[in-house]
């Protein structure tokens, strides 16, 4: 074990050289650590983002198939049926929903059923711009009803408001009372928007009356909560041809079904399944498609947010990987050169030790121990500094990536409404055509904290760093001393 003592004596005796070696090694390790930190943080952020962004599957009527059928009947039976050909969309059956819900990785689901009614015991909010907007709105019920059939109050029937995109991620909030819960099924409980409540002086516990659009039926509804939407979402969120987003009432899907008529019992316009692991979306979609009649229904995946988070995180990760590699290679070369020079300069010492009969292995081990001690100190310094450098770099990266993510989400949001033409947007607020736009927005809202790189120096990082340093040191020492030690001791000593 004499080589330990020699290593120590050497480091102590050559303080200046030792200090320089520690500084150079620290600097190299610092850069490597910064790269490792960003890479790890990007990894962690990616898996967090995967979890928090989530992905959904939407089960709804197959509009494409229905359109085909409509066209076929229009051309075939045009004489016998003079009336306008109608697009008949089959509502989703609860039995099918339960089967899909039982698949692996389906976390929960939200039934959506929408309709519209006319305000009876109160006044709907009217705005002049809204009619123009509503005319443009992709109306889910399409040709089945004319514009005149639209009531001024939109009823958004859901399983639970907490499961909707609006409440889960678009910033909708219950400000009084409570949201619609699964237990509200088969009740007349509703929640109304704060503007509507204010205009009509409504509060939790009040009962309001609405009339069906045909005017034949009157329904009483009990207000259990009042909600508020972020002001920005007002223009984005349009109800089913409703005059103003403030006229949207949330109820249990059963209430919407009741208003629509008895044949809608135990159905929904569409169902959104939340998939616990976004990676599994396609697999769940495949399994789910097997359970339904594809001529009537379609099951579509929506993981735009997930994909954009994933791609932005992949960018950071590949950038960090490049840094790690670049610095690792540059660092290896620099450190190896320094070590090689240092050992060549110690040729005389090697000769003396050889002449004393020290084994070559122990001479190499002495050098290794010296560098190991230097490395321990350097890892400590790099660890302290790495936290700082990593934070700065992380901030920089997130600033850049948020910008590029924003643009990618925007394009995602832009392209989807076109697809929304085929998408089953049965005129409900949760229809994919609308929700994607908002999905994008929701990702934007939360992207700042979701993609924030949590740069922390962990013991694992330091161990990785130490391992990396050891590898460089080992290779350099073996290379440098190999050149000297393969000579005969006489050549080392005398030449």
């Amino acid at each position: 074990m004499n080589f330990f003592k020699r290593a120590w004596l050497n480091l102590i005796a050559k303080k200046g050289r030792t200090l320089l070696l520690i500084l150079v090694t620290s600097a190299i390790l610092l850069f490597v650590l910064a790269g490792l930190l960003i890479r790890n943080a990007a990894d962690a952020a990616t898996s967090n983002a995967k979890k928090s962004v989530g992905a959904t599957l939407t089960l709804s009527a197959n509009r494409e198939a229905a359109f085909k059928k409509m066209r076929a009947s229009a051309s075939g039976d045009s004489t016998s049926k003079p009336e306008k050909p109608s697009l008949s969309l089959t509502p989703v059956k609860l039995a099918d929903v339960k089967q899909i819900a039982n698949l692996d990785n389906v976390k929960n689901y939200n039934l959506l059923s929408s309709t519209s009614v006319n305000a009876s015991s109160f006044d709907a909010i009217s705005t002049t711009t809204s009619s123009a907007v509503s005319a443009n709105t992709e109306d889910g019920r399409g040709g089945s009803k004319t514009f005149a059939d639209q009531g001024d109050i939109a009823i958004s029937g859901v399983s639970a408001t907490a499961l909707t995109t609006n409440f889960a991620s678009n910033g909708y909030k219950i400000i009084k009372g409570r949201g619609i819960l699964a237990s509200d099924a088969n009740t007349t409980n509703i929640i109304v928007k704060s503007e509507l409540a204010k205009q009509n002086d409504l509060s939790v516990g009040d009962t309001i009356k609405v009339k069906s659009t045909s005017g034949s039926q009157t329904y009483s509804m009990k207000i259990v909560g009042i909600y508020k939407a972020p002001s920005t979402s007002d223009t984005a969120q349009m109800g089913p041809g409703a005059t103003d987003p403030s006229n949207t009432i949330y109820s249990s899907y059963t209430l919407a079904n009741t208003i629509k008529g008895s044949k809608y019992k135990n159905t929904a316009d569409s169902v959104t399944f939340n998939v616990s692991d976004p990676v599994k979306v396609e697999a769940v979609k495949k399994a789910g498609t097997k359970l339904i009649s594809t001529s009537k229904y379609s099951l579509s995946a929506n993981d735009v947010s997930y994909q954009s988070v994933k791609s932005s995180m992949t960018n950071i990760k590949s950038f960090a990987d490049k840094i790690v590699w670049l610095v690792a290679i540059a660092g290896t070369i620099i450190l190896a050169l320094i070590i090689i020079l240092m050992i060549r300069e110690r040729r005389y010492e090697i000769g003396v030790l050889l002449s004393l009969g020290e084994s070559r292995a122990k001479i190499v081990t002495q050098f290794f121990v010296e560098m190991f001690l230097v490395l321990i100190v350097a890892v400590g310094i790099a660890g302290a500094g790495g936290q700082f450098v990593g934070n700065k770099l992380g901030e920089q990266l997130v600033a850049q990536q948020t910008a590029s993510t924003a643009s990618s989400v925007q394009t995602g949001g832009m392209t989807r409404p076109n697809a929304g033409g085929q998408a089953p947007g049965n005129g409900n607020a949760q229809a994919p055509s609308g929700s994607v736009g908002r999905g994008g927005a929701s990702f934007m809202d939360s992207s700042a904290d979701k993609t924030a790189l949590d740069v922390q120096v962990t013991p694992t990082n330091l161990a990785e760093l130490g391992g990396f340093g050891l590898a460089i040191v080992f290779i350099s020492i073996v290379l440098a001393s190999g050149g000297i030690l393969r000579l005969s001791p006489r050549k080392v000593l005398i030449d």
Partner: protein
Amino acid sequence: MLELKQIGYWYDREENSLFKNVDLTFETGHSYAIVGQSGSGKTTLLSLIAGLEKPKAGEIILNGQLLSQIGLTKYRQKKVSIVFQSYNLLTYMSPLNNLLTAMAVTKSTHEGDKTYAREMLRKLGLTDEQMTKNVQRLSGGQQQRVAIARTMCCDAKLVVADEPTGNLDEENTQEVIQLFQTIAHEQDRCVIIVTHEPDVAAACDYSYRLAHHEFALEK
């Protein structure tokens, strides 16, 4: 104790051998001088005896065992101790640590015995203060005495020295000559000294001259 049998050595080609078919025998309790002109190959021969290099021809036998069998590293560790003209001390250590290091590397019977090492250095004229400061702060004569003390602390029965007085003044030379005689006669070791100084050769029990690629006993 040490036998050289038909030893030959050359650097580039056999025709240019420094020496050939050398047969020499060295015994413990005696000191030997090897003299000869500069460039004749004295250092080369000594490096063969010291196990720093393998001979190109012939065999070296220590107490009936071939050097190649003992292994050169083990041979240098346990069997031979070398003193160089340039002292060859570990420059980043004190004299005391140089001795302790050598004792540890050679696994000497006195390994780890600080008192013994101090006593050796004191015997060779170093003060306690000099023992613990860096070895490079000592004069040439003092450094060479540390190198000799290092040899004395180790168990090797064979001691070889290459121009050990080459860098020393007259006074130190005499002292070092005496030390080597003490090592040979009192410690019963075999001392082989390469030198070009007549004084050193005269002090040794035997003297070989290397000339015309051959060794001839002068004394």
